[in-house]
């Protein structure tokens, strides 16, 4: 009896695939259910954001930064603001920095919520997604009251923020945090420690610490491999040194160190830490101005600078070159999602096709951030 003839299949996954978090495309070479390789194809969502900066000027570019990573736009706002401030030597008032941190940490919680919810949904659990979206909507309500928008915030300006906290907002924010901490516990009971869920994530897409560094992973993806590296702590910026918080790292409790479950749990624990930072920030926020005096026709001196912020997806770099005119000469954004896409090809060998979805979700890649 002769064996059945098998052959390798080349499949196209995406760009309009519901579980690819936006529009990502993969070319999958598979042998039955098992992948030989999944090659990410980036560029589908390229919008030339960096080139736009050269055309719209320093102030006009702020709303565009929202579109670099629409899930955590506060960090892109902050990155752009910080790059301009560093080049022009502007000091942001203390209260302005606090406002930034408060807005950004709320945004981090919202971003991680979406990430963990989408992860559950990609694996097949629909209910948790409804729960996280409910919580995210509540945070969006708060942010909407603060800056008038729910997604493309455009909250920060060169030299500070555009709006002070509205009256009564602090109490609302603190009340929300009181509501949020138990919700996180409830969410964990709902899905995180569910045996089937854990089994589905543990030991899938294991990234070793050495690989994580070689492939330039950042943020929660890097920390899940056991490496304690957080820009907020290690290259302290803004007013983060004022706060006490832990940097959660993966510990391989459910399987191997650096698997999908570790990445998931790091995000869950980071939300609790963000909540801690927020409580301190809301309590300590000093009085004063929130916006520094900056000339309307903003022209930084010629030169270049690079700044780093810890966004929801990790170390985000903004590189800015100025030639002294009213328009940036070159802007470059370095994002965590792009780096994370690089490692997928390596990790996918030998995985099931269904696990590719888990892998993408656990790396928390956001399509517009990959392509810009």
């Amino acid at each position, binding site marked *: 009896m002769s064996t059945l003839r098998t052959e390798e299949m080349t499949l196209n996954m995406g760009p309009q695939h519901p579980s690819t978090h936006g529009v990502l495309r993969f070319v999958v070479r598979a042998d039955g259910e098992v992948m030989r390789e999944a090659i990410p194809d980036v560029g589908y969502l390229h919008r030339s954001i960096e080139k736009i900066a050269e055309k719209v000027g320093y102030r006009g570019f702020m*709303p*565009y930064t929202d579109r670099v990573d629409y899930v955590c736009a506060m960090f892109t706002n902050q990155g752009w603001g910080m790059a301009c401030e560093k080049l022009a030597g502007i000091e942001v008032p203390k209260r302005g920095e606090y406002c930034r941190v408060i807005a950004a940490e709320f945004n981090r919680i919202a971003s991680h919520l979406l990430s963990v919810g989408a992860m559950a949904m990609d694996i097949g659990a629909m209910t948790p997604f409804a729960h996280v979206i409910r919580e995210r909507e509540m945070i969006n309500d708060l942010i909407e009251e603060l800056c008038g928008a729910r997604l493309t915030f455009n909250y920060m300006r060169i030299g500070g923020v*555009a709006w002070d906290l509205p009256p009564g907002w602090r109490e609302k924010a603190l009340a929300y945090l009181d509501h949020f901490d138990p919700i996180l516990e409830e969410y964990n009971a709902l899905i995180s420690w569910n045996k089937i869920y854990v089994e589905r994530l543990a030991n899938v897409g294991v990234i070793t610490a050495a690989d994580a560094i070689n492939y330039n992973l950042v943020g929660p993806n890097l920390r899940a491999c056991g490496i304690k590296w957080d820009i907020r702590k290690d290259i302290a910026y803004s007013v983060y040194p004022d706060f006490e918080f832990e940097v959660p790292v993966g510990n391989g409790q459910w399987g191997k160190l650096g698997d999908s479950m570790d990445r998931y749990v790091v995000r869950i624990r980071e939300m609790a830490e963000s909540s801690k930072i927020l409580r301190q920030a809301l309590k300590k926020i000093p009085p004063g101005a929130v916006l520094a005096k900056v000339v309307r026709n903003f022209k930084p001196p010629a030169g270049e600078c690079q700044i780093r912020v810890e966004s929801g997806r990790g170390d985000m770099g903004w590189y800015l070159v100025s030639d002294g005119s009213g328009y940036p000469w070159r802007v470059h954004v370095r994002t965590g999602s792009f780096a994370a896409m690089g490692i997928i090809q390596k990790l996918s060998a030998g995985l099931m096709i269904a696990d590719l979805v888990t892998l993408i979700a656990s790396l928390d890649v956001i399509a517009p951030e990959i392509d810009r």
Partner: protein
Amino acid sequence: MIVVSEYVHNIKDTVSTIFEGMAVTASHFMRKPYTVQYPDRMPVRVQDTLPFRYRGILDVDLEICTGCLACERACPIDCIVIVAEKDQQTRQLLLSQFDIDIAKCMYCGLCSEVCPTGAIHHTTEFEGADYSLESLIRRFVQDPLMAYKAKKGPETDPKIAPILSRGMAYLDQWAQPGGEKPGGDEPA
């Protein structure tokens, strides 16, 4: 034997964690629903529940527009077009066109931030669906009119005063560079 006990243990774990999750889900039957049925079953219009700073579709109060073109210059995508010319006889600015392309606008707020009188401002209106792009261009000037001129003292014209105070209240929301006029929350 170990394999069997692990097998049984796994089943037990699975069942117990599923029940834990189901308990959470069941508890939500008792809570108030968070979703609302938009748009037809809202007790109040959504527009009326939105915060003051909400950045919806732009509106312009031409009565208090000074024709300074600051908004036109601030807009990064040039969706505001203003034509303001000096009238030869009266030596005053005459506004003959003020169009905003709502289809292009990204509701960033850069234009309303720089307006000196709060003439151009965001409303809480967001339902802008229409059948043609052309009808999304809002044309505010019907007949050419004189631009507003700020008076030295408080505004005296009873028609304009309430509009101006609305505009000023809108401007108060924005942070002042250097914090000369602290708006918003009082410090702890």
